[in-house]
């Protein structure tokens, strides 16, 4: 039947459209998931109105997928992208915080291991809604992924947006480098493709994350060496009046870190200074970084959630408004009976017989009209018929 042929053509059109707008979707920062949703919805509507048949659709789908067009093949790249990105962001999140402080003789201990979400939150404040990816950040993402396909290096809708410093690299890096040793610069100039990696790891021969004590046994004391209460030297040296010093240190730390529990301030057994969030020093450090503190404390307001979802009203591609405004005078000028009115009232596409085509030639001799049409879609008796060429002979 011809309907089978129509179905085939329609499916090829769908596949063609989907594959060719993929680049547009990428450049708009919209992921494959949305594109797949578009295709699924479109095909579903076509099935519902009978324009394509499910039987034809089934064998067609794998063929289309193998053609590299739509389908499940599109999903894995998104995951590929996501996983390395998460890992990378956690890599750089902590060192960036430490970078603000020049290294002290004793290494600053890494903060108490936070619940996993907090580590992730470090990178949220650094990334305001930088949703539309610049080509640079696209490239950068692609390069930063170890082994990730550069083509997939674009943000997916459900991952945190890339930090702005990734695109504004020269500025941000310079600021950071000023705090670290200059020694990093010559190392970095080596291989361009390694730039991002070096920066993210921040190690570059200086401090590797692996060197930090990963997990502190609970109850062990970690001396504070970050500059605000560095009395650990005195504490270590003068052991004779250790108790006295200890209490004074604890008091200082209590005020310095604004530890909420004042009872602990005096009687505490040695504990790890509070590093878990709301009022510890890291908050201030992040504040110096120019990061709004409320983002840190209330993830609900983070930029990720503030990213605007345009609730814009849909602009109808075809504006039918003009039809209503058209004065009835013009419409009725050329005929007297009710057929044209019927035509105007019949907007239901399923009941209206309609031919959409291009004309090559239209001629008339007396009341006999001849026309040649091409590339047409006919909707007759609820069925779609396509034609490549058509000839018409009408008498008026």
């Amino acid at each position: 039947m011809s309907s089978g042929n129509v179905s085939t053509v329609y499916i090829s059109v769908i596949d063609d459209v989907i594959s060719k707008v993929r680049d547009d979707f990428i450049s708009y920062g919209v992921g494959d998931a949305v594109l797949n949703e578009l295709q699924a919805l479109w095909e579903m509507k076509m099935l519902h109105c009978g324009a394509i048949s499910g039987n034809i659709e089934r064998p067609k789908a794998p063929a289309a997928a193998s053609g590299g067009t739509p389908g499940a093949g599109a999903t894995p790249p998104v995951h590929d992208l996501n996983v390395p990105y998460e890992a990378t962001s956690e890599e750089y999140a902590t060192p960036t915080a430490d970078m603000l402080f020049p290294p002290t003789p004793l290494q600053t201990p890494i903060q108490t291991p936070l619940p996993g979400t907090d580590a992730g939150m470090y990178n949220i404040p650094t990334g305001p809604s930088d949703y539309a990816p610049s080509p640079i950040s696209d490239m950068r993402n692609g390069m930063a992924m170890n082994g990730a396909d550069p083509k997939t290096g674009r943000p997916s809708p459900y991952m945190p947006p890339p930090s702005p410093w990734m695109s504004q690299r020269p500025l941000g890096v310079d600021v950071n480098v000023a705090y670290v040793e200059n020694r990093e610069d010559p190392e970095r100039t080596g291989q361009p493709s390694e730039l991002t990696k070096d920066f993210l790891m921040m190690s570059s021969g200086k401090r590797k994350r692996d060197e930090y004590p990963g997990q502190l046994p609970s109850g062990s004391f970690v001396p504070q060496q970050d500059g605000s209460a560095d009395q650990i030297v005195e504490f270590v040296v003068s052991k004779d009046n250790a108790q006295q010093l200890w209490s004074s240190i604890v008091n200082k730390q209590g005020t310095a870190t604004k530890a909420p529990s004042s009872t602990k301030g005096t009687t505490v057994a040695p504990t790890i200074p509070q590093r878990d969030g709301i009022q510890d020093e890291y908050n201030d450090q992040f504040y110096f970084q120019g990061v709004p503190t409320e983002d840190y404390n209330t993830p609900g307001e983070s930029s990720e959630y503030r990213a605007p979802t345009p609730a814009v009203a849909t602009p109808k591609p075809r504006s039918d408004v003009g039809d209503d405004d058209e004065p009835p005078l013009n419409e009725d000028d050329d005929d007297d009976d009710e057929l044209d009115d019927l035509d105007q009232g019949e907007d239901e596409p399923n009941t209206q017989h309609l031919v959409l085509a291009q004309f090559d030639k239209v001629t008339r001799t007396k009341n006999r009209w001849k026309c040649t049409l091409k590339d047409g879609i006919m909707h007759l008796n609820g069925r779609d018929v396509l034609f490549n060429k058509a000839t018409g002979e009408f008498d008026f």
Partner: protein
Amino acid sequence: MATFELYRRSTIGMCLTETLDDMVSSGALSPELAIQVLVQFDKSMTSALEHEVKSKVSVKGHLHTYRFCDNVWTFILTDATFKNEETTETISKVKIVACDSKLLDTQQG
């Protein structure tokens, strides 16, 4: 006009338009991107009709109304008979909308 928006009124075009409407309303798509999809549909549909469809049709009927405006012919036929290789269908009233194919040819080079 690089392509005709004509085919958007077809079944497949209406289905696409509805889908895009839904997705823009839900915020999944930006209106600009939706327009891009429609433009691509215009191209893909035109190309498919040109290259993938081989069938021929002949139409006879009484011409009720003709109109030529903005390079678009509109015919309203009554008691029209459509013949192709397989079937013959008689339609009591049908509207034909046809754009000038030369416009497309010159645009496409």
